C-alpha cells in the first residue's frame, strides 16, 4: 500500500527521470505478449480495460526508466511463453482466452513473482489513467470547490 512517504518518493523519483528517446524496450513479440497479459488482468468490460488505457506503453516506459528490471521482466515473459508451449504448443498471444486465463490463474494461485510484478504495474498504469481513475472508479478529485460538504448521509452519523 502506498504510504505518504511512498507517495512523496514517487513524486521525487518522477522528477529526476532522464528524458529518454521513445525507443521501445520491448520487441514486437514481447509487446504483443504484454498487451495480452495486461488485458487479462484488467479487461475491457462496460468500461475501458488496460489496453484501452494505454497500459502497454506505461509498462514499456517503466522498463525504460528502470533498466535494472529489464532482464527479470524479459525472463518472466519467456517463462510465460514456455509454459504456454508446454501446455498448449503455442505462444501465449495465440492462445484462446480460456487457455490464457488458465495459465494466468495458475500463476496467480502459486503467487508467481512475475505475475505479481506485471499485475502491480497494470494497477499503477490503469488506475492513474483517465480511463481507469475517472471513468472506471469515478474519481472527481483535484477540483476547485467553493465548499467541502463531506458526508451528507444522516445514517452515517452516530
Amino acid at each position, binding site marked *: 500500500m502506498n504510504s*505518504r512517504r511512498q507517495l512523496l518518493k514517487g513524486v521525487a523519483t518522477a*522528477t529526476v527521470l532522464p528524458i529518454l528517446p521513445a525507443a521501445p524496450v520491448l520487441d514486437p513479440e514481447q509487446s504483443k505478449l504484454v498487451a495480452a497479459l495486461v488485458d487479462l488482468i484488467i479487461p475491457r468490460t462496460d468500461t475501458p480495460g488496460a489496453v484501452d488505457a494505454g497500459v502497454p506503453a506505461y509498462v514499456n516506459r517503466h522498463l525504460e526508466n528502470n533498466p535494472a528490471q529489464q532482464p527479470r521482466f524479459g525472463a518472466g515473459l519467456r517463462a510465460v511463453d514456455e509454459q504456454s508451449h508446454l501446455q498448449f504448443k503455442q505462444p501465449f498471444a495465440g492462445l484462446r482466452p480460456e487457455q490464457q486465463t488458465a495459465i494466468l490463474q495458475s500463476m496467480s494461485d502459486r503467487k508467481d513473482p512475475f505475475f505479481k510484478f506485471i499485475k502491480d504495474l497494470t494497477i499503477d498504469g490503469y488506475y492513474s489513467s*483517465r480511463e481507469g481513475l475517472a471513468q472506471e472508479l469515478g474519481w472527481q*478529485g483535484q477540483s*476547485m*470547490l467553493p465548499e467541502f460538504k463531506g*458526508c451528507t448521509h444522516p445514517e452515517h452519523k452516530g
Partner: protein
Amino acid sequence: MQIQKSAVVHDVIIIGSGAAGGMAAWNLTRQGVNVLVLDAGSKFRKSAFWSHVKPWEWQVRLDRGQRPPQFYVDPREQPYTFTKDQPFDLMRVWGRGGKTNVWGRVSLRYGDVDFQGPARDGWEIPWPMRYKDISPYYDKVEQLIGVCGGDDDQDSLPGSRYHLPPPAPRCGEQLLRKAARGIGISLVAGRRAVLTKEHNGRAPCHYCGACGKGCDISAFFNSSDYLLEPALRTGKLTVIDNAVAARVLNNPEGRASGVQYFDRASGAEHTVRGRIVIVAASCIDSTRILLNSKSSQHPNGIANSNDVIGRYLCEQVRFHMYGFVPELAGTAALNDDGISGEHIYMPRYNHRDGRKRDYLRGFGMQFWGSGAQSQAQFAKSLDGFGADFKRGVKRRYPALVALHPYGEVLPRRDNRVTVEGTPKDRYGVPIAKIEYKTGENERKMVEEMYDVADAMLRAAKAEILPYRRGHVDVAGSAIHEHGTCRMGEDPKRSALNSFCQSHEVKNLFVVDGAAFPTATEKNPTLTILALAWRATDHLAAEMRAGRL
C-alpha cells in the same frame, strides 16, 4: 580556493528558513533586529507547482521536458549514512520555507502529559517547561498561521479558542468515529494548519486535495509566505540563497562569532559574522553543523563539552492498516479530497482510567488516505485478476478507510548522529552518520497499536486488507526527528535551556526539532513554531537588556 569573508557583523544569523528559522526571522525583524538567514536552497516558484495536474497529465508533461519543483534533497547530492542493519530515511527540503512547503499540516498542542511524562516514568529528562509556559505561544501561533480544528480539550491534546472551523468529515470517517465510540475510543476533529475560511487576508482552501505538491494560493501555512516575506518587508532581513551551512565559528572566548557556508552552485566557501547564531536547519542537519563546529575551545563540537549533542535521537514508530467499510462498498465515489489528509484524529488515551500497559509513553492515530483517492494502491493487496478483480476494486474504492497509528520512541543515549570518520560531502565537510534502533518498549507499544487499529476496523465491520502484524515503517518515515540537541533544566544532561539557548555558549540557539527532549506521538511543527517564537522573544529581551 579563496574564502570570501564578509566584514559586516549581523545582529543575528539564522541557519535555515523552515518553520523554526522562519519564525525566528519573523519575530526578530519585527522587533527591530537585523537578521541574516542562510538558506540551503532558493524560493520555490508557485507558478511552477503541479498542484492541479491530474495524474494522467504527469507523464505528458514529463515527456515535454517539464518538471515539477524539486522539493526533496537528493541524497546523492547531500549524502548521509547509517548503520547497515538500521536504515534511516531522511527527508530534507532545502529552499525557502523548507519542509513547510509540503508538510502534513497536522497541528497538535502538546500537554503536560508530554512535557512531564519523563518526570513521571523516570525515563530520561522532562521538558524544562509546563503547558502554561507555552500555551500563550500556541495561542499566538494559531492566530498567526490559522489552524482548523474542533472545540475538544483533553490532557493529551489541549484545546484552543482560536481554531478555524473544522472541515466536515468524510463518510468513512463518520463511520469510523461511530465504530470507535462503540469500543470506547473517542475520535476528535483533526487539527490542521489549513485555512477553512479567509484568515488574515489570505484566501481559504479550495479543497483540491493536492497539498503535498505545494499550495499555489498559500491556503496552508508555509514559512516562506507567512514568515519570511513579511520579515523581508521590514527591511531588516537579508536572505542568502543556496548557502549550505557547514560550521558555526567561534571567537577565542568560545562564543559563536559567525557561520561558514558553501555556495550550493559554485562550491565557493564563505564566512559571515554575527553577534548571535541561531541554528534551525532541521534536526539532523543542525546536529551535523554543531558537531562539525570543532575548535580548540570546542574540541567535541560547539557547546558540546557534556557530550549531549548528537545523542538521544528519537522519532516515532508507525504503520498503516486499511479496511473497507460495508456501508460504502459499491456506492458511487464522492470527491473526498477535503483539506487533504484526515479530518479526524485519535488523541492518545492509553494513560487514562487506570489502564494497564507494559510499556512507557503512548500513541495516537491519524487517518489520511481514507475515501476516494487519486490511485488504487490497495488493489495490489487483492488476489486474482480479470473482470471480477476489476469489479472488486471498483466496489471497494469508495469504502477505503486508512489507519495510521503513531507511537513515541524513547530517547536513548546510543541513538545518535555522529560525524567522526564519516565520508565528506562535495564541500569537504563530514556528513552525518545516523545510528538508531528501537527497542522492547516500542515493540510492546506496537503490539497494542495493532490491537487498537484492528479492533477499530472490526467494530466498523470492515473488510480488513491483509497486513503483517508487527511491521513498522523504516525509521525516519514520520519525518519527526528530535532529541539530538535537547533542552533541559540540568546543564550536565541537556544542551539548551527552555529558551533554546545553549547552556554553554550563551549566544548560540537551536530552535528546531533537535531541541525536543522527547518525540511524543504527535506532529511537532506547531510546537516548533511556538518554541521558536518564545525563544526569540527571550533573545530580543536579552539583547535589549544588553546581556546578549
